[in-house]
């Protein structure tokens, strides 16, 4: 279906960046720019869907690395042994699809909302897509780090320029938090490659070479701690989560969609792809800590969510809770739970992204996000309310919708290794249910509290949400293709058959 001679992964990564250059001539014509950017994002989506449609065919052809569907490897900075290595396996394919999809959602939801400096907005969005695609596809640690940092810069501007409220404070906090973690990870990466070079004499940053490095337990623990901190900040785990509510609240809707849908996933993806495989013993030792932080995160985030008055902030805290489940699934490091985590990453991206879109749409109309300002929306804006209810239910894990699949797998897998954790996490689900239902109840069903002139969804928004809802339903009812896709990579990561 897709010819093998094309460097598809490079195209996936750099197509958006190339489109940025295309936008420069359209500097004065934002509408044209929007169309161009959307076209390139749809092209990306089509590419990833095409890859998904043909992944079985690709899997039949052996690549240099087991489990990888596509590989690209070129020399880059020879003096340091840094190579330009991109690889696509089932997990990255899922993440790449999620990326392409989320960016389409992000641009569609900004279609009318971003009026000022629109072209710059699009350029940043496209640049970020390049960065995130790169993170999900790199197999060279230095290259990974490069993309990991690059994706911060557009986000910094997105929140700072188009955000609301204390946008400057929030964006600087976001930037410094994530940068702090990742710089320590950079040191760990450098140290790891030096250890490897000492042992084998080969200077390389390639993940698959570094996996074979033998490290003293003590060293391994330190290096893992640095990686873990970087990923935990992105995740975000308690107690380094404080940047997230601020960033989410003050970000423009598109920014929130991407933050929730993708940036948080880079943390969990990094842990799955790099953290655990590189330092298995250290990861094993730190598992109790990981469990504890994840559980505290779930329960703490749920309790804080109760107290929120801003809808966006509430959903941001719910994100912390959901990512706590992903964390538990990874910490169990067991095929079923890990598959659940990976699926849950995609689910959370879709569901929470949609919730942020809905809040954004409401904010555009009412210019407030206070829960106390609304009430009785079911009667006034039935379409909006329907979707809000739908995605809220998906978020709390209603069977038949997507989050259920992920949470079920995570809990089922964790139950085997640590029943206590699973039981506590289940308590977390109940809490989530309570505050989400309360949110829906207050916003949609109570008596109208303030007279607000609200129009219902316009066709563009309706199409967008309907598509997301269908996807959500499909992932919830028929997750088998996705589970198939990640089966082999998960087995290879854990090193045993499910």
């Amino acid at each position: 279906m897709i010819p093998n001679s094309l460097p598809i992964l490079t195209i996936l990564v750099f197509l958006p960046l190339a489109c940025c250059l295309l936008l420069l001539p359209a500097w004065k014509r934002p509408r044209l720019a929007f169309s161009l950017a959307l076209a390139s994002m749809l092209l990306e989506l089509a590419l990833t869907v095409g890859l998904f449609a043909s992944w079985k065919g690709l899997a039949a052809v052996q690549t240099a690395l087991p489990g990888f569907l596509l590989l690209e490897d070129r020399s880059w900075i020879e003096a340091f042994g840094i190579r330009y290595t991109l690889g696509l396996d089932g997990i990255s394919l899922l993440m790449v699809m999620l990326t392409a999809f989320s960016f389409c959602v992000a641009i569609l939801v900004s279609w009318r909302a971003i009026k000022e400096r629109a072209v710059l907005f699009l350029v940043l969005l496209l640049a970020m897509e390049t960065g995130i695609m790169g993170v999900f596809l790199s197999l060279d640690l230095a290259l990974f780090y490069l993309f990991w940092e690059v994706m911060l810069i557009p986000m910094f501007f997105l929140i700072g320029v188009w955000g609301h409220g204390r946008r400057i404070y929030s964006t600087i906090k976001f930037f410094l938090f994530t940068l702090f973690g990742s710089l320590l990870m950079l040191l760990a990466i450098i140290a790891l490659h030096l250890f490897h070079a000492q042992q084998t004499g080969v200077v390389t940053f390639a993940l698959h070479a570094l996996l074979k490095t033998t490290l003293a337990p003590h060293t391994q623990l330190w290096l893992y701690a640095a990686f873990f901190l970087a990923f935990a900040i992105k995740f975000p785990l308690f107690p380094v989560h404080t940047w997230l509510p601020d960033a989410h609240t003050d970000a423009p809707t598109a920014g929130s969609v991407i933050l929730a849908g993708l940036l948080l996933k880079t943390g969990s993806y990094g842990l799955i792809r790099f953290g655990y495989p590189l330092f298995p013993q250290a990861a094993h030792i730190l598992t109790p800590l990981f469990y504890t932080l994840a559980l505290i995160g779930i329960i703490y985030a749920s309790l804080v969510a109760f107290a929120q008055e801003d809808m966006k902030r509430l959903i941001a805290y719910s994100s912390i809770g959901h990512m706590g489940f992903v964390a538990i699934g990874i910490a169990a490091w067991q095929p079923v739970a890990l598959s659940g985590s990976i699926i849950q990453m995609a689910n959370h991206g879709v569901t929470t992204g949609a919730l942020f879109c809905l809040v954004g749409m409401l904010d555009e109309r009412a210019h407030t996000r206070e829960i106390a300002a609304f009430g009785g929306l079911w009667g006034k804006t039935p379409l909006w309310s329907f979707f809000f209810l739908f995605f809220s239910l998906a978020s709390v894990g209603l069977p038949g919708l997507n989050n259920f699949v992920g949470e079920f797998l995570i809990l089922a897998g964790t139950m085997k290794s640590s029943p206590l954790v699973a039981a506590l996490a289940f308590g977390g689900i109940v809490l989530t249910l309570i505050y989400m239902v309360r949110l829906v109840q207050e916003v949609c069903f109570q008596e109208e509290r303030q007279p607000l002139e609200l129009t219902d969804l316009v066709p563009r928004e309706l199409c967008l949400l309907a598509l997301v809802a269908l996807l959500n339903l499909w992932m919830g009812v028929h997750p088998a293709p996705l589970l198939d896709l990640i089966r082999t990579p998960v087995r290879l990561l854990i090193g045993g058959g499910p």
Partner: protein
Amino acid sequence: MDMITIPAVNMTPIMPEIFLSVLAMALLLINVFVPSGQKSYIGYISFIGVIAAAVLVGTGWGMHVESFNGAVVQDNFASFFKMIFLLAAGLAILISDQYMVREECNHGELYPLILFTVVGMMLMAAGTDLMTIFLGLEVMSVSLYVLAGFNRENRKSNEAGLKYFLLGAFSTGFLLYGMALTYGATGSTRIADIATFAAQQSLPSSNVMLLAGMLLMITGFAFKVAAAPFHMWTPDVYEGAPTPMTAFMSAGPKAAGFAAALRILLVSFSTMQADWSQLFWVLAVLTMTVGNITALRQDNIKRMLAYSSIAHAGYCLVGFTAGNPTGTAGIMFYMLSYTFMNIGAFAIIVLVGKKGEPNGNVMDFAGFGFKHPALAVAMSIFLFSLAGMPPTAGFIGKFYLFSGAIQKGYIWLAVIGVLNSAASVYYYLRVMVYMYMKEPTEEFDWLQVSAPIALSLLISVTGTLVLGVVPSIVLQYAQEAIKLI
């Protein structure tokens, strides 16, 4: 009566220096006949001269020629640094013209003085005799004192010149005393002879005179590269000096100080590395931390960049502490990157400044991003590079330096380095916050971009990005250069 025979000397190693000196003197003469409104032409000629000198340096790449009885050498190490100096001078010349015309200070002496500074710096990098290095440093410094005070109508500039002169003279005293003690201990000023002497000692650090000589020399160089706690002069001088000269001072002389210190320490005192690397550990930590912490609180952008330049010297000192090929090649690469990004940032400051108030505040950048998008993007690239974000030259440079430190086992030093780097991001971001996230208070309608500044920005942006994305093209030269030392 026997005559003193003056030995035949091979002039090749100092051809670029001779060329630039002759050019500088010729320009001084020409200057007299150029009417005062057209001094820019002297700048253009100097720029072409700098390019020609760069070609001269480039043709000598790969050769190893000693000359003047071992006082000067032409090797890759020297050539690499000479290229950095020429780059700094070229960019400084390009951004000077518009500034000097605006400040009504467009005197023709500027360009010969810049060229002469370069001659001094080149001899510092090429000198293999303490005498040559010292005189190179003096030649450089004397011209720099004048350049710092070049805007003689401006009190701040006068202050900068005088302060730089006084503290510079003070630091040269340290350096000279150190050299004298070293000469006293070893009986030679030739770097190679000192190395031989030190190698013969079973425990060179027990030779108190040699040790004291080394320490005093390090102190002298620490002054010149503005390492804490010898950095006090930097902010005042950088703030007061004409902006293009601040740009030049922050890149060129610093690189020259590193070049000379590298050669002396790595060749002469290689057997005492255990002693000096401990000292540099402390210096590096102090310099990085003091520079970054103080820069956090600056509102004047030139002062902020001055403190940040202290911090950047600190990162280079991390490479010194490591003292291995990775760390030292890292210093060379870093100084090259720093030249691009820092002079680029100063070029923007030159543009944003108004006549009479050229020392801008960070607040003056409010809303700049949407009034002049292209310039603001360039500024953002420079600032991100200074902050060490990929994919820019600053990232690769820091990567290189910290790799060197980790390789040598200085894990904590590297950790302190990256923490500092994270702190530094804050004040660089602050400029961007003002550029993009605050409402404009000015229309920036006075702002004009002359062709030379546009060229310098183009060179700086290209350099910053190219060194960040495909650093291999320069890395191999840096590694070759350090190999011979």
